[in-house]
């Protein structure tokens, strides 16, 4: 089908969902409901007792609950469920004697045994639903690559296609019906706001109460906003344990598998000249990185065609799910900076000196007056991006993007516009040229790589020939710390081993 044809089909599907809504089928699942209630009691107890003691058990329980919602294959084909239950039991054993509430531990343990000893009701519902429309008329959508692989191992033999939302976009199967395994809120809004099928059904266990349908990010402000309604159908034994009906509410976010963030450092000081404020990013494959608010960072956009996948994105647009391209051992910007200075040949030392001169003076002003005062003063001078003042001290961030901002900054620093302006612009051009060369090589390395491996494993090493750029790593961001810390500048943007994301993925 042509691109125009595919687009027309998508608009027709959008109109169908806007008219008819999506379906949510909730299946009674007494064993899962019991585990959910135990999980809730645990969360309340952990909340009262504060962090520390219960963290590992809470992490294991959240992971198992997530799998109950997203991997409903029969027990014999469901190591995720049995291993998850094992892990809960192990954590329970470790807490025996350490906590007062033995009866809570007993309940969690027996509920975990319960859910891992019977084939999940949700899986049975999925099979019945597929039978109703016929194997060739539908596609099953799993929440992530791991769930997709597990469900595919079960349903693939029956000729049923199981895809992640990303794979659905790439393959665009021409079927009428999609069955989504998991609650709507576990999925990106695009699944319902830009659908590929005229009918979409979410299958969930009845104990999962949150049935909100995601909306498009602009729907609150848009004319013609896409607002998709849900029709909810309930099947089977849905009697809920009474404890769920009464008692305080726990937000669904608190039940989701979460990363372990180290406690926030006191940010009562400003970063020194060799330090930066940075957010910690957890990456696939047990790695992490500090990301400062500096120069753009390289990323891979898997939805783009060959030759246009390697992109440079502003730090502010890095999200969970972004694939970053990182240089192992050292930042790419540092290497680019060196390559650019080499390109400038005899001009290099003068450019470096003039860069150092204005950056040093800006750093002095920051140390002397503090960031807030500097930002205010620059704003007063008409510098539009004044909030970037600290970022501009970074040696690898060449200059403010806007000519006007840079001129006003130099004037405020009591420095002549030239040669600083000209030199910085020269350096920027040289970095762009060096960067373009690296991008061409990265494009060919990414084109040669197997994208499905990257999506499945979350990270992939790439080999380049250019000196200084060997050993690039493409890796998915799986969590971003909500708070910034102060770290040495040399530690920023370099991946390192970290297990804080063990409960994620």
């Amino acid at each position, binding site marked *: 089908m042509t*691109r*125009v044809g595919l687009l027309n089909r*998508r*608009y027709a599907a*959008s*109109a169908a969902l*806007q008219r008819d809504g999506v379906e949510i089928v909730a299946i009674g699942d007494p064993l899962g409901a019991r585990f959910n209630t135990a999980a809730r009691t645990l969360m309340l107890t952990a909340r009262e007792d504060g962090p520390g003691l219960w963290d590992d058990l809470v992490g294991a329980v959240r992971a198992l609950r997530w799998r109950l919602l997203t991997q409903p294959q029969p027990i014999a084909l469901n190591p995720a469920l049995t291993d998850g239950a094992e892990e809960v039991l192990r954590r329970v054993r470790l807490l025996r004697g350490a906590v007062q509430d033995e009866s809570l531990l007993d309940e969690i343990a027996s509920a975990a045994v319960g859910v891992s000893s019977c084939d999940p009701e949700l899986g049975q519902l999925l099979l019945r639903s597929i039978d109703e429309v016929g194997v060739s008329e539908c596609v099953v959508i799993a929440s992530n690559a791991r769930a997709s692989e597990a469900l595919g191992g079960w349903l693939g033999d029956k000729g049923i296609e199981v895809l992640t*939302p*990303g794979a659905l*976009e790439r393959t665009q199967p021409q079927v009428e019906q999609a069955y989504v395994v998991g609650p709507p809120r576990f999925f*990106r*809004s*695009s699944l319902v*706001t*830009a659908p590929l099928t005229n009918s979409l059904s979410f299958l969930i266990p009845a104990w999962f109460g949150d049935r909100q349908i995601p909306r*498009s*990010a*602009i*729907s*609150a*402000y*848009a*004319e*013609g*906003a*896409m607002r998709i309604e849900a029709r909810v159908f309930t099947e089977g034994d849905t009697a809920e344990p009474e404890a769920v009906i009464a008692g305080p509410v726990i937000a669904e976010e608190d039940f989701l598998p979460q990363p372990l963030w180290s406690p926030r450092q006191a940010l009562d000081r400003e970063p020194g000249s060799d330090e930066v404020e940075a957010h910690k990013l957890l990456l696939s494959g047990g790695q992490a990185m500090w990301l400062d608010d500096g120069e*753009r960072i390289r990323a891979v*956009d898997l*939805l*783009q*065609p060959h*030759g*246009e*996948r*390697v*992109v*440079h*994105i*502003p730090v*502010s*647009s890095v*999200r969970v*799910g*972004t694939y970053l391209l990182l240089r192992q051992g050292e930042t790419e910007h540092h290497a680019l900076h060196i390559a650019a200075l080499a390109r400038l040949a005899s001009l290099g030392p003068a450019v470096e000196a003039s860069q150092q001169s204005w950056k040093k003076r800006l750093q002095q002003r920051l140390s002397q007056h503090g960031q807030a005062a500097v930002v205010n003063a620059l704003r007063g001078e008409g510098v539009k991006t004044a909030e970037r003042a600290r970022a501009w001290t970074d040696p690898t961030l060449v200059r403010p*993007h*806007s*000519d006007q901002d840079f001129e006003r900054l130099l004037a405020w620093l009591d420095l002549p516009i030239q040669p600083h302006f000209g030199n910085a612009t020269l350096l920027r051009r040289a970095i*762009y*040229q060096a*960067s*373009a060369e690296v*991008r061409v090589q990265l*494009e060919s390395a990414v084109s040669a790589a197997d994208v499905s491996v990257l999506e499945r494993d979350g990270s992939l090493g790439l080999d380049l020939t250019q000196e200084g750029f060997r050993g690039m790593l493409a890796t998915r961001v799986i969590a971003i710390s909500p708070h910034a810390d102060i770290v040495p500048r040399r530690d920023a943007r370099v991946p390192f081993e970290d297990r804080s994301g063990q409960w994620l993925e």
Partner: protein
Amino acid sequence: MLASQSPLLAAPLLTLRQLAPGTSVRAVNSGYVVAGSFSSLDETVFPPRARFAGSYWQVNGIDAIAAIEHLAEPRKSPRPEVGSIGHMAHVDSDWAARLAAPAADLAIVGTSSWLDGDFDAWITRASDSLAPSSIRDLLLPDVGPVATWFTRIYSSARLSEQLPLPADLRCVILDGFGAIKHLGEVDAPVVICILDRSVADDTAAEIVVQLRNTHGEPVLVREDLGWRAPAGVEAVAFTVAL
């Protein structure tokens, strides 16, 4: 492009008389658009003949001619057709002048191989008796050695190496996430962001909404702009002080 003012060009013979040899020109006749260096005008023959872009041309066959910035190599392209949509926009009456002296004030940033595919599509008004318009002929992208162009094309993947964009652009279309990421670095009177809802990542939408909520003055799409979005299309409009 279609909304830009019609260029005011003198009659071809008058323009040619004023030209110094070596000046680059762009000329349009019934079959071609030609651009290249002007060498001479011969009015001793009838009809008068001009030599430019390496060939002789009959002046009475030239529909429009204009001096342009220096061009090293001569270029020749078939004359683009105006078609159904051009008629709708009333650019058919001065089409030759527009081809000779285009406003060239539109840029599109997007995935270049997809854009290239889109340029090969045709567009028409429902039940129009006129031939459909080729999107390539309407936009005239500045891709390859073309003799005239209306629209600059940038690949999102390479944009960060090409910023800042030229200051003479009146409108920039940022097509998709990869282009919209650069919204903060694009200063044009009109910026159109095309948000692809099928992309799982809402970052592009968040960038636009954040700009609207922090610096924007809302504009009503239907009342103020007189545009009714078709079903399935969401639209947000606002102004931001430059």
